[in-house]
């Protein structure tokens, strides 16, 4: 995982509530055994018609959808399944952050493990962001947990302290957990040993 660095980007607005993981990447693409090659399947059924041609009015197919690193979505983004293919597809397309008024729990956890920053803002800020001109850019700085709007307004956003450290250092949780192996071993000694007799 690469360390998460500050960046500035235009936003791709998708002002819809409850965008679920079946829209982010439909289930028929989950038969893959790889993490790669999912960018073309991102929002597939909104993005392409039944012949596989791009739908010209879908935002990712417009100039605004190109080379932007921030998705500005409606409330409860990422609801539905636990598929980590959702953040894989979003990051492979080029997104580094998603801004919303709230996120579904599993998606949020999955995103943080894949260098995709879920940024929760208030309704007022959300409305203000949606009203910005197309070419407006926001600056996102994880270290200070701030987003800077074109007019200089600085918006603070919450991030779990542990996830923040992992993102800034570009490390994952597993290394940290593995270092706690002695504690895990000690805990296991207090437990009975197999499924047949557990709990």
């Amino acid at each position, binding site marked *: 995982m690469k360390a998460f660095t500050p960046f500035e980007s235009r936003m791709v607005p998708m002002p819809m509530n409850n965008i679920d993981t079946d829209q982010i990447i439909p289930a028929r693409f989950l038969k893959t055994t790889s993490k790669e090659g999912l960018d073309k399947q991102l929002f597939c059924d909104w993005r392409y018609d039944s012949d596989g041609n791009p739908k010209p009015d879908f935002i990712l197919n417009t100039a605004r959808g190109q080379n932007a690193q921030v998705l500005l979505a409606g409330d409860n983004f990422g609801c539905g399944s636990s598929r980590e293919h959702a953040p894989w597809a979003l990051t492979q397309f080029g997104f580094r952050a998603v801004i919303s008024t709230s996120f579904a729990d599993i998606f949020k956890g999955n995103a943080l493990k894949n260098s995709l920053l879920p940024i929760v803002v208030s309704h007022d800020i959300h409305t203000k962001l949606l009203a910005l001109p197309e070419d407006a850019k926001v600056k996102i700085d994880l270290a200070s947990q701030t987003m800077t709007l074109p007019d200089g307004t600085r918006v603070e956003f919450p991030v779990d302290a542990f996830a923040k450290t992992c993102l800034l250092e570009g490390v994952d949780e597993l290394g940290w957990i593995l270092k706690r192996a002695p504690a895990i071993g000690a*805990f296991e000694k207090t437990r009975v040993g197999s499924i047949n007799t557990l709990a």
Partner: protein
Amino acid sequence: MSGNPKTLSQKVSDAHIVHEEPGAPSLIYIDLHLVHEVTSPQAFQGLRDRGLKVRRPDLTIATTDHSIPTTDRSLPIVDPIAANQVAQLEKNCQEFGIRNFGVHSEHQGIVHVIGPELGLTQPGMTVVCGDSHTATHGAVGALAFGIGTSEVENVLATQCLLQRPSKTFRVNVTGSLKPGISAKDIILALIAQIGIGGGTGCVLEYTGSAISALDMEGRMTVCNMSIEGGARAGMIAPDDTTFNYLHGREFAPKGAEWDAAVARWRKLPTDAGAKFDREVTINGDALEPMITWGTNPGMGIPITAAIPEPSSVSDPLERDALTKALKYMDLQPGKPLAGHPVDVVFIGSCTNSRITDLRIAAALLKGRKVNPKVRVMVVPGSMEVKRQAIAEGLPEIFRAAGCDYREPGCSMCIAMNGDQLQPGQYSVSTSNRNFEGRQGKGGRTFLASPLTAAASAITGVVTDVRTLL
């Protein structure tokens, strides 16, 4: 008992804390890790890349459910990508020493059906699976989370999960359900009430007389859809119904160990005086059959009600969501859903594919015929459900009524295996998600109970089952 009164979920969570330190989430131990073919291959590859083993293969169980056909199991899988995924799970399980109830196992089935059925999931356990419907296992009083593939890898390697504390949310279902109303109607009513993000950050605990009166499989239906209300997990306190269900199951404790386990399990229910962060009450006496009309599970209405008018909603994004859902579903607001023609009926999924669900549907279909315009698919949740159904003569009832009775798997709930709606088709489904395209690109899903599904299969239109009882 010492200390502050605790809820069921707090007791289970606290008993599994391996390690705590400032600035980090709690490291909690996982008693049972369920694995399936879709969300695990990248996790096993991660282990290989790091040269790691599975820490506790004895606490890890795999099965194949999402990608496999529900047709004749003696035939090879036609879809090469699905076949590869299934083969990959078999290879991974062999390499890492994990028990795999694979395609040809007598224990194969939907992961959330076989866990409780085999007595693998027990009260007081922590259970995870790379699948959002893992909350199902909360029906036995386990704390069960759906996790992503990175966490699948973490648990394979360490048997642990990093967890921030959840909020506690009590759902009290009072009274008793009237004929024609079932567990599915409880959970659809709850999600319609709190919304699909209403339980975010929470573990739900279902209590009250209408919950206590449910059999275990009804409780599983309720807990299963906790995620559709946004919750991390859903639980029901273990009681005699739970113990009677688990007793004698293959992986349940036996003999003196059983007695000791039951004694421990009896201490799990929420203490008197324990505080929940949030509570809601649902009047079970007043519940009607519920059905969804829209494109998320919160868009549910009593079957006697009209489809809501977007103009009645003040929030602009919510109003847009209703308008978009009505357009996708090609429905008119202000009209009842009852009477709407149906192309497909699907009875199955980790929500409603257990023997009780099949019995309920078969009882209504016995001696009747399904409407010839409707394709009716009945998909048992596991090989064990299939065997039990045969013992009870249920396949004959389904087939005589004109249903397509199939082999166990997730099937048309997630439409990964070729079982899918055609664009524009309407289904009444006992599954858990009605998102756009969930049951096939362009397909339109009405979520409902097995009774409502069977009733609609008979009439060919969305039907209030109470008119057929």
